[in-house]
């Protein structure tokens, strides 16, 4: 039942926010904060009470283990669709991240959103409800449903409360682009889901969309490869992997701060989750066939994102491109598939969620005071604030991967794990570490150092902003210095995943010809 509450609380809280708007925006804000706070409490409760040593993946060839929490009721019986939710260590980490960033995104839009605040918070909470649904769904139909449904409120967030950049495209353009990219890729995934279900139906005579039923679906190598490609495509667009990334900088640069925080913090992570939860376990051998290409794409994303970030003048676009670079590490780690790499991927998911949220909030606060995000109009801000620049330095260093902070751990583990399996890829990927130092220091230099435009001191952080940034900072330091609790929760899923993927990867290495050439019709 806890899982159902995790979904219902934000949905009901959102409706309440919308209705409370008529009494005053302040009520809506408080309700939104309370809603996300109770979500965080629920997640913490699950964390404290649960035993996350098991996960539902076939270990040593047979289905063992189980979800820590689950709920399953028939929904559309005729099609074998059930409303089933499940939680294991992987989901728990992501749900907690979502709840934490949810609290902070409500808090960071406290003053930014002045029009229709109640409706804004309804959309924000509904987006988060959709994201949590994605992390909990254990029925492929239900998963797809949440995957698409969360786009609608996010679309409203960008289209209604976004920024119109002077001289740039209107925010509606960015919102529609975001929606079309993800939804059409999602439809490809829906076709793949249906194909998988029908393959399973023809093999076993049972029509089901249940995740655990579909896990060991027997299928031909070619069929499996194409179905896997359908899933991979949807996640690649959302992650985003480089040829499909063009929606992300637009969406980020025009979204309100809270929108950017949850876009970078959790929406992109749904794709990483999808790769870990669906692509690798459902199609281990097909994934292993794709792995060389996927890892190349990952390396390409790392380098391309970093190089593009270097050239941006809009601070938010810069941070958006760094996200592309960091997501490249995730793609690399997922398809390397060793246990270290997978642990690193999970750490990177958490750490990037925190560091990107911190950077977007900071940029939002600077932009609120300077009324511009143009880096050319910044500079010399260090002397004009008393507290803000120190936080800026911290999150920029976190993003470049300073040892002792979460991002370093994530990237280091990914590269270490990749090196075991594919040394060449790891070496190429580590270029990203150097490039990230370059763009991070450039961002630092252009905003805080250099010649100040004026000497007038700017309004410093108030208590609310100070609290938001300190929370993020504390979590980041925790991730970097004492990651054991996180690794313990994620150990069972990563081990199960690795045990499933390793034989397939080993088998794929022995096949000399590139799989694409043979799989093409």
């Amino acid at each position: 039942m806890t899982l159902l509450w995790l979904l219902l609380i934000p949905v009901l809280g959102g409706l309440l926010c919308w209705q409370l708007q008529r009494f005053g925006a302040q009520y809506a804000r408080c309700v939104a904060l309370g809603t996300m706070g109770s979500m965080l409490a629920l997640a913490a409760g699950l964390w404290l009470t649960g035993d996350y040593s098991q996960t539902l993946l076939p270990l040593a060839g047979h289905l063992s283990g189980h979800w820590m929490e689950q709920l399953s009721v028939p929904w559309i019986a005729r099609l074998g669709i059930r409303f089933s939710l499940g939680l294991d260590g992987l989901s728990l980490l992501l749900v907690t991240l979502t709840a934490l960033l949810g609290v902070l995104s409500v808090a960071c839009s406290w003053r930014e959103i002045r029009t229709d605040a109640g409706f804004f918070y309804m959309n924000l909470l509904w987006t988060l409800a959709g994201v949590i649904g994605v992390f909990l769904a254990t029925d492929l139909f239900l998963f797809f449903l949440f995957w698409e449904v969360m786009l609608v409120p996010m679309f409203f967030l960008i289209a209604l409360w976004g920024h119109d950049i002077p001289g740039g495209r209107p925010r509606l353009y960015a919102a529609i682009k975001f929606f079309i990219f993800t939804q059409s890729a999602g439809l490809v995934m829906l076709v793949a889901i249906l194909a998988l279900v029908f393959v399973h139906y023809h093999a076993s005579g049972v029509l089901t969309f249940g995740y655990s039923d579909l896990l060991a679906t027997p299928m031909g190598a070619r069929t499996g490869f194409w179905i896997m490609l359908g899933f991979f495509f949807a996640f690649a667009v959302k992650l985003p992997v480089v040829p499909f990334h063009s929606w992300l900088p637009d969406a980020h640069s025009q979204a309100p701060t809270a929108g950017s925080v949850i876009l970078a913090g959790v929406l992109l992570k749904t794709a990483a989750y999808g790769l870990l939860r669906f692509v690798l376990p459902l199609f281990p051998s097909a994934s292993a066939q794709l792995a060389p290409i996927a890892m190349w794409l990952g390396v390409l994303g790392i380098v391309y994102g970093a190089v593009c970030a270097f050239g941006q003048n809009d601070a938010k676009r810069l941070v958006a491109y760094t996200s592309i670079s960091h997501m490249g590490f995730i793609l690399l780690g997922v398809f390397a598939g060793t246990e270290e790499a997978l642990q690193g991927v999970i750490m990177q998911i958490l750490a990037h969620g925190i560091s990107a949220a911190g950077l977007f909030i900071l940029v939002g606060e600077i932009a609120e005071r300077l009324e511009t995000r143009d880096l050319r109009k910044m500079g010399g801000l260090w002397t004009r604030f008393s507290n803000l620049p120190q936080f800026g330095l911290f999150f920029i260093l976190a993003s470049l991967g300073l040892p002792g902070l979460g991002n370093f751990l994530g990237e280091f583990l990914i590269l270490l794990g990749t090196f075991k399996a594919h040394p060449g890829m790891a070496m190429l990927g580590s270029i990203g570490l150097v490039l990230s130092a370059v763009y991070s220091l450039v961002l630092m230099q252009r905003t805080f150092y250099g010649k100040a435009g004026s000497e007038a001191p700017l309004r410093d952080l108030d208590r609310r902003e100070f609290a938001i940034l300190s929370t993020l900072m504390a979590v980041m330091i925790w991730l970097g210095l004492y990651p054991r609790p996180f690794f313990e929760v994620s150990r069972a899923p990563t081990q199960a995943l690795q045990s499933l993927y390793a034989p397939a990867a080993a088998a794929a290495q022995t096949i000399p010809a590139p799989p694409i050439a043979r799989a093409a019709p």
Partner: protein
Amino acid sequence: MTHPQLLALSPILIVSATSVIVMLAIAIKRHHALVASLSMAGLALALASTAAVWHGAAAPRAMTVLLIIDPFACLYMAMILIAALAATALSHTYLERYQGYREEMYLLLLLSTVGGMVMVASRHFASFFVGLELLSMPIYGMAAYLVKERRSLEAGMKYLVLSAVASAFIVFGMALIYSRTGTLVFGDIGAKLEQISGGGSIVMLGAALLLIGLGFKLSLAPFHLWTPDVYEGAPAPVTSFLATASKIAVFALLLRYLIETHATRYPALVDTLSMLAILSIVVGNVLALQQSNLKRLLAYSAIAHFGYMLVALIASGPLASEAVGIYLLTYMITTLAAFGVITLVSSPLNHEAQALCDYRGLFWRHPGLAAILTLALLSLAGVPLTPGFLGKFYVLGAGVDKRLWLLLGAIVAGSAVGLYFYLRAVIQLYLHPAPVTAPAPSTEAFAPAPHWARDAGGGVLIALLLLMLALGVYPSPFIKLAHGAGIEPQPPTPPLTADRG
């Protein structure tokens, strides 16, 4: 004709009788509300009797050689009756402020409904054609009902001319097929075609002409040219009827015809249908991109949607007729809701609220109406938790089952393009009116009565909203209905079974 047969025919008989009663009532005294209530009562009674017939007789009941009342016919009759009910209620709201004669609208609507019901029950070319004409002819009058409006007259004339041409194509096609097979019964045509050899090209020509005629009625590309103009010019309730009841009847008939004649065995026909489907999807979605008129946008959207539905038709598996049933149901409810909102926001005194900018900020003035229109547009776009997604899911499922990858690609690409104009329309509802332009009189003129929900049209909209929510969130009962109403080609293929009941 025996007693049970009369009972089985009762839905059609009731609507026919209602039209006579309505005519007499108009002759005695013109009273708008009375006539509208009489029509609605008749339609509601017919709907109840349809349910009773469906529930009472599981086995198909043949009425002479012309008609057959089976679950399939019952489902589509019920859909047509619901569409007619909604259109009647909306007409009442719409015509309330109209100055001319208002009552004949209901008479025409009832007659057209009878035509549609005959069509979905027909299994013979004669009843097919009679039903088609009875369906179409009143619509000419309905489209041109606002006789003092140029656009309405134009819509009526355009529909009259093109519909007559389409009918001519259909009759000629029937004649050609009859010349080779010697029968007018659907089921026999398929059997005869297998036996005869030679003369294939004449039958092909006949089938092509028939398809062209039906393509006109369904506004499939490239026979769609009349659609946007007629949608735009006709009064909104009439458009809602034209877009739903008339197309449902024609599509259901096409489905029955194709299944009973085993037509999907002929690759040429399947290829033609596939081309029509792809063309409709492309044309509908691409031409809608630049529309700033909501009614025209919905017209192009309908073209695309019938393209999607053709894919299910082509798939023709055991899943296909169920998919078509679900798709038509979701499409009908969604379209009715969209036109219902247009009707309530418009009034015939002024021009109708058609431009997208007339809807700007509707959410802040009438959250309920805006929410219904949002749900309808998102449903047409196929977003999950709306009915439209269920339809799209079924069509994709039917396509995947038969491995129609090209058509599936067209659906995916078409949906991606379609999102653009649906979202553009949706966001208009939520934008605050631009502060630069003075509070235009237009926005005031298009404001519906503050208590819109108390009107007949408003009540129907609420009912449609509830139906949309139910279909989106818990579609099982509807799926059961559509599944029970499937007709399957002979020999029957084993039905799809779900696990865990």
